[in-house]
């Protein structure tokens, strides 16, 4: 009895292994011309219109191709996608939600080489998808981090609006001035969300020669010290309270609890929608470029450096034949100016940000119409938040622990950096 059981179990095991080892099993037979259907992954379809916009735009130009959306849960997107790809039921067009998973998909042979897809010259964000000289996805959207500021609260505090020339010291000074001016009210000078990127994203992108892949994290020290000081001076809500009370950046800025906020450009669409629906207060706001490391990149005559990751489209390696041609064509469309225009119309910052696109973006009702905002949205050098490497996910986890330890006051920044570098040696060092 026992032996039979063991034999049966090992046969089942071998079967499962064989299945799991061959990745995408179901190969779509090449279509002979005629209608082609492509499936594309997307998340929160009801509240995230960009996927449908891309699909509709392409289908309008190519009536013999059908693009169907496959809904995924936004928070667990990569887990679900991984499970589907492992079982061979993944979508044809794979939306690359996070850059840190691109190398995993590529190393696992899940993505088609799309170097031959034609891209417009001035499109941003392509470096994220270059691995070993070949390109594995095409960006359609590039977010970057900027400063949102509440003009009404600035007026109330008697502080001058940003002029685009800030370094981080200027930023900190202004926030303290705002806090002083708003003393006695419920509003703080600024709001910093709990993510590690609010500190590390800037540090990694702006400090010269900073590279988290090298295991050297000393460049973070200055940025953390500055933030901790702002926290101690009560210019912004402290990290612990922020976490315990689970404050949201939409709530804090939208309900005028903070005069300014560093956040990604995706917030524009949300803020406009919330102001229209009455969930956020009605006030005038603007966007300023991210504060800079030093004066060499500050000011509207220079190109400010900030960070942000692109969102792109990749093609499932199981797709072949006529379907593959259609898929590549779709990718080319998504990167094109036509797609960029339709995305800009719904308040999304596309990867292609030329003048026409920027103009369309600002035609959206509710966007601020001052010059600085236009400059901040259109002119920036955006470096990746997550460098493309198989080590990135692990490194970001180490840095996340550093972030929570330092911001909660559990560990001083110096020893936290040492501990993180040690962990890098221990867990990642090749």
């Amino acid at each position: 009895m026992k032996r039979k059981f063991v034999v049966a179990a090992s046969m089942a095991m071998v079967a499962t292994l064989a299945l799991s080892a061959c990745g995408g099993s179901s190969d779509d037979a090449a279509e002979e011309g005629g209608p082609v259907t492509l499936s594309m992954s997307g998340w929160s379809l009801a509240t995230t219109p960009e996927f449908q916009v891309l699909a509709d735009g392409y289908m309008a130009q190519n009536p013999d191709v059908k693009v169907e959306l496959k809904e995924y849960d936004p928070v667990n997107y990569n887990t679900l996608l991984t499970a589907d790809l492992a079982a061979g039921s993944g979508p044809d067009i794979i939306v690359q939600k996070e850059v840190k998973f691109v190398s995993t998909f590529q190393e696992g042979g899940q993505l088609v080489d799309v170097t031959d897809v034609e891209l417009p010259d001035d499109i941003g964000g392509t470096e994220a998808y270059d691995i070993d000289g070949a390109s594995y996805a095409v960006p359609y959207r590039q977010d970057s981090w900027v400063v949102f500021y509440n003009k009404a609260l600035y007026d109330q505090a008697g502080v001058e609006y940003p002029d685009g020339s800030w370094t981080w010291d200027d930023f900190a000074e202004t926030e303290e001035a705002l806090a002083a001016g708003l003393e006695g009210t419920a509003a703080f000078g600024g709001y910093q969300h709990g993510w590690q990127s609010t500190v590390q994203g800037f540090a990694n992108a702006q400090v010269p020669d900073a590279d988290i892949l090298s295991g050297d994290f000393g460049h973070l020290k200055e940025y953390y010290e500055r933030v901790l000081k702002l926290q101690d001076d009560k210019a912004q809500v402290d990290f612990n309270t922020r976490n315990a009370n689970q404050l949201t950046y939409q709530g804090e800025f939208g309900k005028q609890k903070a005069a300014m906020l560093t956040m990604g450009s995706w917030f524009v669409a949300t803020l406009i929608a919330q102001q229209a629906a009455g969930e956020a207060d009605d006030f005038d706001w603007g966007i300023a470029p991210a504060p800079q490391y030093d004066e060499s990149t500050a000011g509207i005559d220079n190109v400010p450096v900030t960070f942000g990751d692109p969102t792109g489209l990749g093609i499932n390696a199981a797709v072949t034949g006529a379907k593959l041609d259609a898929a590549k064509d779709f990718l080319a469309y998504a990167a094109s100016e036509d797609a960029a225009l339709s995305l800009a119309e719904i308040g999304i910052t596309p990867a292609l940000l030329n003048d026409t696109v920027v103009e369309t973006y600002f035609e959206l009702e509710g966007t601020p119409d001052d010059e600085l905002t236009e400059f901040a949205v259109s002119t920036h050098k955006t470096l990746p938040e997550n460098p493309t490497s198989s080590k990135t996910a692990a490194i970001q986890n180490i840095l996340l622990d550093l972030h929570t330890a330092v911001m909660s006051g559990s560990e001083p920044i110096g020893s936290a950096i040492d501990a993180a570098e040690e962990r890098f040696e221990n867990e990642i060092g090749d």
Partner: protein
Amino acid sequence: MTGLLAPPEDARALRKLADSPPPRTPRATSPWRRTGRIGLYLVLIVAAAGLFAPFIWMITSSLKTSNEVFSIPVTWVPEIFVWNNYVEIWTKSDMLTWLRNTLFLSVVVTFLQVLTGSFAAYGFARIRFPGRDALFLVYIGTIAVPWQSYMIPQFILLSELKVSNTLWAIVLLQAFGAFGVFLMKQFYETIPEDLSEAARLDGLSEYGIWRRIMLPLSIPALASLALLTFVNTWNDYLGPLIYLRNPDLWTIQLGLKSFVSSLYDTNYALLFAGLVISVIPIAIIFLLGQKYFVEGIATSGMKG
């Protein structure tokens, strides 16, 4: 176990004592006892308040606007009562479909788990065969492995069997767990062997013993297993997340989460409204099913 049972004649006398109503002695109504009672009630009420507190916060938050839910300081009472959250859940979301799916899953899984679990537990508890203990250890061992560890191989397997993206995937996943077997086995062990012996002598087969003796005597255990399985399946999130992709297969937890969130944004007020609605059926089942948990049973069914 046999050492603990009272001899039959005494058992009869004691049973009479145990079953008869407690004597009305003055002891029952002394003032000291009464204050003790009141003190006990006070403690219980405070404890109950503490236990219900999070749920109460959930209810009041479900009546706020989404940006009002989290703030400093903590607000217990909403500024404006947004009853619309509940209306929105019922009319704009697919709540009825989700309810239907969740109900189907919970009922089927509970039924299968209780049936096969108690059946298998009898084999483990009452029948001695070679390899029994080792096999039982294997059963318990599987409980010791966290689900996310073998989730992917399991997913691949179920996808190959073509049941992924159907409700049957969840049924298969949950209905044959080791927990039910373990629970029922332990309860069967509290039932004296002599009962089964007598039944065997009467000519009852093992299956008959299971059906006519073990099952009726283990109603509290069956009720507990049924309740816990029902609750776990009702509230299960990760399993349905991975296996139920079509929106018309979604369970309440899945549907709610998807209805209220986008990538960076979750409408918590709406979410809480949905969760409040979701908890009510379970609370009702629990309240009504109380008597099955504490039903007195005759353990010494020795006739005569």
